[in-house]
């Protein structure tokens, strides 16, 4: 992409809610991305560390895009830039081609109505009932009572809260509160949903429910979802794309299946290991027999993905290269609907044979990573 794209009104920007096209005097981007972030930089205190260090990112329409990172990695700052709750010091933000940083206050408020947001701690009004909470964004947008009532009645079933319409937030479980949060975020029919650690305050079972709900709503309402999380499990459960953040930068990015099966950066590997158990406990390694004289022992983690996930790789390698293979751990899992297996192997034999065996496996397209013994 050229540095300064000519101001072309992309068709996508007309899709933005609340007549964005009408007042669109801001330079638009020739981008097909739903969310386009370019070189975002943010430093909170002068001389302090960078919360965002030149982050660029494109989220395609209809995608569920996950950003994963430890606390302090900058992911929260990043997601808050997308609706300008946080203003970057430098960089560009375009939502459906509309340059948010060029908008004045009223135009920004209109643009925000096209971007729903869900929060870790739900952020519901304690003195408004479920219905009144969902009505809030419609009230501030100036809809009539009748319109609000109709819209709230329309949304409640989407999140399964018809029975709780008149309950107070304090009477709800965490999962129900987040359902209200999601309903409220979607009340003004946004095309973008931002999820700021939306499931981090929930138990695993409720987390799964809420993620399933978000995925279902994405399909039904054709939403584009950007979520941040510190749990790789969330990414595994619903994301199509993932970016890993560390120290204000995106260190790795790609399709979820690719990143899970072929993680490149050490941080990514640690994240992936949380979910698919790549690591072998040191106590298990200590119990493995030592190699015989003239032989070596190599520990490796092998990820089976794609066409070879059903092939008898271990016995073939053992037979053809004359090495003994001890399967230390193994499991088969599914990510983004694609099966893959992960196995920790201890291979024994002459050094050349072991190396050749591993090379042969790599040749098959398996990811072989040696584990420090």
């Amino acid at each position, binding site marked *: 992409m050229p540095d300064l794209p000519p101001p072309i009104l992309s068709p996508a920007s007309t899709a933005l809610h609340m007549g964005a096209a009408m007042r669109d005097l801001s330079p638009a981007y020739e981008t097909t991305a739903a969310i386009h972030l370019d070189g975002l930089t943010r430093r909170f205190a002068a001389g302090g560390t960078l919360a965002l260090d030149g982050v660029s990112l494109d989220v395609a329409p209809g995608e569920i895009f996950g950003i994963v990172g430890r606390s302090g990695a900058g992911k929260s700052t990043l997601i808050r830039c997308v609706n300008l709750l946080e203003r970057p010091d430098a960089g560009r933000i375009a939502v459906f081609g509309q340059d948010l940083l060029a908008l004045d206050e009223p135009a920004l408020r209109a643009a*925000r109505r096209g971007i729903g947001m869900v929060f870790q701690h739900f952020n519901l009004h304690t*003195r408004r009932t479920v219905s009144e909470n969902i009505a809030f964004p419609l009230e501030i947008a100036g809809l009539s009572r009748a319109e609000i009532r109709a819209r709230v009645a329309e949304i409640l079933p989407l999140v399964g809260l018809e029975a709780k319409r008149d309950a107070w937030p304090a009477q709800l479980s965490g999962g129900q509160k987040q359902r209200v949060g999601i309903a409220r975020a979607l009340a003004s029919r946004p095309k973008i949903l931002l999820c700021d650690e939306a499931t981090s305050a929930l138990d695993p079972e409720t987390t799964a429910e809420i993620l399933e709900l978000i995925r279902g709503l994405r399909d039904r309402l054709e939403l584009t979802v950007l979520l941040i999380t510190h749990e790789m499990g969330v990414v595994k459960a619903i994301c199509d794309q993932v970016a890993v953040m560390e120290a204000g930068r995106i260190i790795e990015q790609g399709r979820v299946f690719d990143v899970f099966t072929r993680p490149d950066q050490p941080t990514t590997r640690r994240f992936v290991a949380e979910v698919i158990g790549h690591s072998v406990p040191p106590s298990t390694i200590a119990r493995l027999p030592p190699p015989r004289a003239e032989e070596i022992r190599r520990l490796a983690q092998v990820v089976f993905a794609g066409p070879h996930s059903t092939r008898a790789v271990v016995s073939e390698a053992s037979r053809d290269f004359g090495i003994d293979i001890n399967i230390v751990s193994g499991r088969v899992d599914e990510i983004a609907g694609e099966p893959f297996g992960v196995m920790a192997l201890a291979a024994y034999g002459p050094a050349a044979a072991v190396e050749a065996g591993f090379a042969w496996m790599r040749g098959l397209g398996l990811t072989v990573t040696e584990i420090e013994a």
Partner: protein
Amino acid sequence: MSWLTPTMRDLLLEALWETALMVGISAAIAVVIGLPIALLLHVTAREGLSPRVWINRPLGLLVNAARSTPFIILMVAIIPFTRLVAGTSIGTAAAIVPLALAATAFLARLFENALHEVDKGVIEAARAMGATRLQIVTKVLVPEALPGLIAATTVSLVSLVGFSAMAGAVGGGGLGDLGIRFGYQRFMPEVMASVVLILILLVQGLQSFGDWLVRRVSHR
């Protein structure tokens, strides 16, 4: 109960009425003026919705100055102002002016604290939904702070009952004044005891009512 002559009873009732008048009117004024001041302090604070140090700093100083002046001194110090507002510097009406002033400063600070207690997340959510600053104040900040605002008003009502006892110094009357003049200066311990008893009941009643109201409006 031989001391409770009809005259004495009338004196007690009249004093109770004067106290109610002084506390009630000055509290009402304090709420009406104190809330906008508190909102202004809150909104213009460094982390507020619309940071304005040049408003926040002087206003905060003014509120603190009024709060740190002992009430008995404040009452005397603002006599010219009292005369301007109430037309007189003695009597119940004259006592209401300094009471309202002290209560406004006190309540502005308590209200500000109550506003500060509102969950920042709810305000952030409103911003994310495209709310204007005015909408955030009227539809989020004040409604969410309401239980705290009521609790603060209760506290200031109770304090006002105490302050109003000093109103005797400017001939404001009231229960405290009655206690001093009859109970203390005329050596009538039973009058003092009944004044104290009535004050205790009054404060208890106000506090219980305030607590009940807070429970009613909060849904935490």
